[in-house]
């Protein structure tokens, strides 16, 4: 890249089942507090990229109601109706074009109170091939993926539960998390409600209300705005076919390709050694070893070893989701942006209670959308 793009600041809400404010006020407060921190006004933002979902907001072109609240009145605005990692990608591209020096990414969801995710699940399905059959949905797709991985790698149910326990404990150290279970045990996980086996309630993400905002800037502008920029070193994105029966749910070609592209751009050949921390959009914990393998963070079929030896714990050799990940809170569409903010705060040493011990030089952040992670976006970040 000729031009460099940095993350100069970000803010997250506390995640909850019901935010004290509606989406307008919630997002306004967040944008304002970011502006105050960076000592800027909306005049300093060249372009706004929004990520939200019409379906979840219950309005068509749902960002249009939010323009004044986020400071975008009469400004350059565009929207991504998908996971917010795509909005960061879009914002970054606008800066790379040379026409913009700053871009504000804004994403919100009221997935805890107004519109919980099962409501949208049936609308995710192919209306012709799958909706009438009522067999495939987000949960059963993730369960098939988990089962295929467990059959291949010999990961046990106890080991799968231990990954959930790790994330629930990490969440308890994250002041913004909604689901916190400092004393969770494998037994609790295995006794939680059976969804579609091997997946249970405590393996799944936690729907939440919440928002996240992030300011990106060109190199010159970033250095003006902060002493602590986080550089986007590499990015890759890829999308598999929709149909589960035509995909290798364990190999995850689309994630593998996205990660390869991001590493190539960042000049990394050995991600397992170079990446110090990863924040992954694992909507179900079974995806943690699957994703980590597809991205080359751990060797193939080493999920069982990773789980029993604690490789992905905060103190482990490749900490994954020290924030607790989507198990701690997952306002849909905001997920990818949260992962990028969390990875950035690890690089800056600002993650507080869930800060990884060995200061990482490079971090990986991942966003995904679609059943069993059809579409993947990978960012490599560095300071």
């Amino acid at each position, binding site marked *: 890249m000729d031009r460099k793009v940095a993350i100069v600041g970000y803010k997250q809400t506390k995640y909850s089942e019901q935010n004290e404010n509606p989406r307008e006020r919630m997002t306004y407060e967040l944008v304002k507090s970011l502006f105050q921190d960076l000592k800027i006004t909306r005049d300093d933002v060249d372009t706004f990229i929004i990520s939200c979902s019409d379906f979840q907001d219950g309005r068509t072109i749902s960002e249009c109601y939010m323009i004044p609240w986020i400071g975008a009145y009469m400004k350059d605005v565009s929207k991504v109706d998908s996971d917010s990692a795509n909005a960061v990608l879009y914002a970054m591209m606008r800066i790379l074009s040379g026409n913009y020096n700053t871009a504000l990414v804004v994403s919100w969801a009221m997935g805890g109170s107004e519109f919980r995710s099962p409501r949208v699940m*049936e609308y995710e399905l192919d209306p*012709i091939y799958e909706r009438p059959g009522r067999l495939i949905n987000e*949960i059963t797709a993730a369960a098939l993926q988990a089962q295929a991985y467990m059959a291949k790698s010999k990961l046990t149910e106890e080991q799968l539960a231990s990954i959930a326990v790790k994330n629930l404990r990490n969440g308890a150290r994250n002041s913004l998390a909604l689901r916190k279970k400092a004393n969770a045990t494998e037994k609790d996980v295995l006794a939680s409600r059976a*969804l579609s*086996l091997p997946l249970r309630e405590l393996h799944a993400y936690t729907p939440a209300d919440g928002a996240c905002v992030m300011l990106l800037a060109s190199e010159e502008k970033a250095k003006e705005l902060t002493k602590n920029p986080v550089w986007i070193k590499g990015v890759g994105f890829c999308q598999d076919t929709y149909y589960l029966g035509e995909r290798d749910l364990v190999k995850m070609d689309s994630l593998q390709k996205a990660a390869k592209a991001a590493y190539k751009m960042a000049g990394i050949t050995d991600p397992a050694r170079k990446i110090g921390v990863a924040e992954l959009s694992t909507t179900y914990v079974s995806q943690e070893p699957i994703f980590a393998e597809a991205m080359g963070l751990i060797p193939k079929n080493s999920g069982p070893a990773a789980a029993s030896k604690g490789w992905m714990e905060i103190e482990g050799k490749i900490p994954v989701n020290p924030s607790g990940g989507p198990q701690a809170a997952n306002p849909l569409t905001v997920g990818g942006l949260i992962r990028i903010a969390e990875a950035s705060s690890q690089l800056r040493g600002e993650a507080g209670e869930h800060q990884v011990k060995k200061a990482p030089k490079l971090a990986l952040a991942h966003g995904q959308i679609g059943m069993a992670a059809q579409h993947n976006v990978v960012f490599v970040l560095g300071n």
Partner: protein
Amino acid sequence: MAEHKIVDSRVGLTFMYNYRVGESLDRYLDGLKSKKILGVMCPECERVLVPPRSMCGKCNTKTKKWVTLKPVGTLKNFTVSHVEIEQGEIKDREKPIIIGQVKLEGADSLLTARIEGISPKDVKTGLKVKAVFKDTTEGTLQDLDHFEPVK
């Protein structure tokens, strides 16, 4: 948690989209009506796709050659599902069901279907299964009711 006033902004629409099925599924449904499972072959990669698609995503090519598959195959993957999504809620099923991914003989993609005739604790991948059709078929996806173990 504080109580917040909410607004009832329902519009009173039921979302009925009249989706058209397209030529491949049209022919597949006709096949099911006569208790046959049809697949389609990509002329470039020669994969046989079931359910059939009008084009192969991998090769970006129109699929043309139709094949009638034997209604038998192997269970490649499965989940024992205790819940279903009902009107936007995750509800417990009365009895768990087995949802399988079946590789029919001669097919390259996996067909998702209900597996019956075996208990959730005995089900295993590698199981040989056969298709069971409804007694009276109507040319819908539900005509292929489930798969069960080959005795």
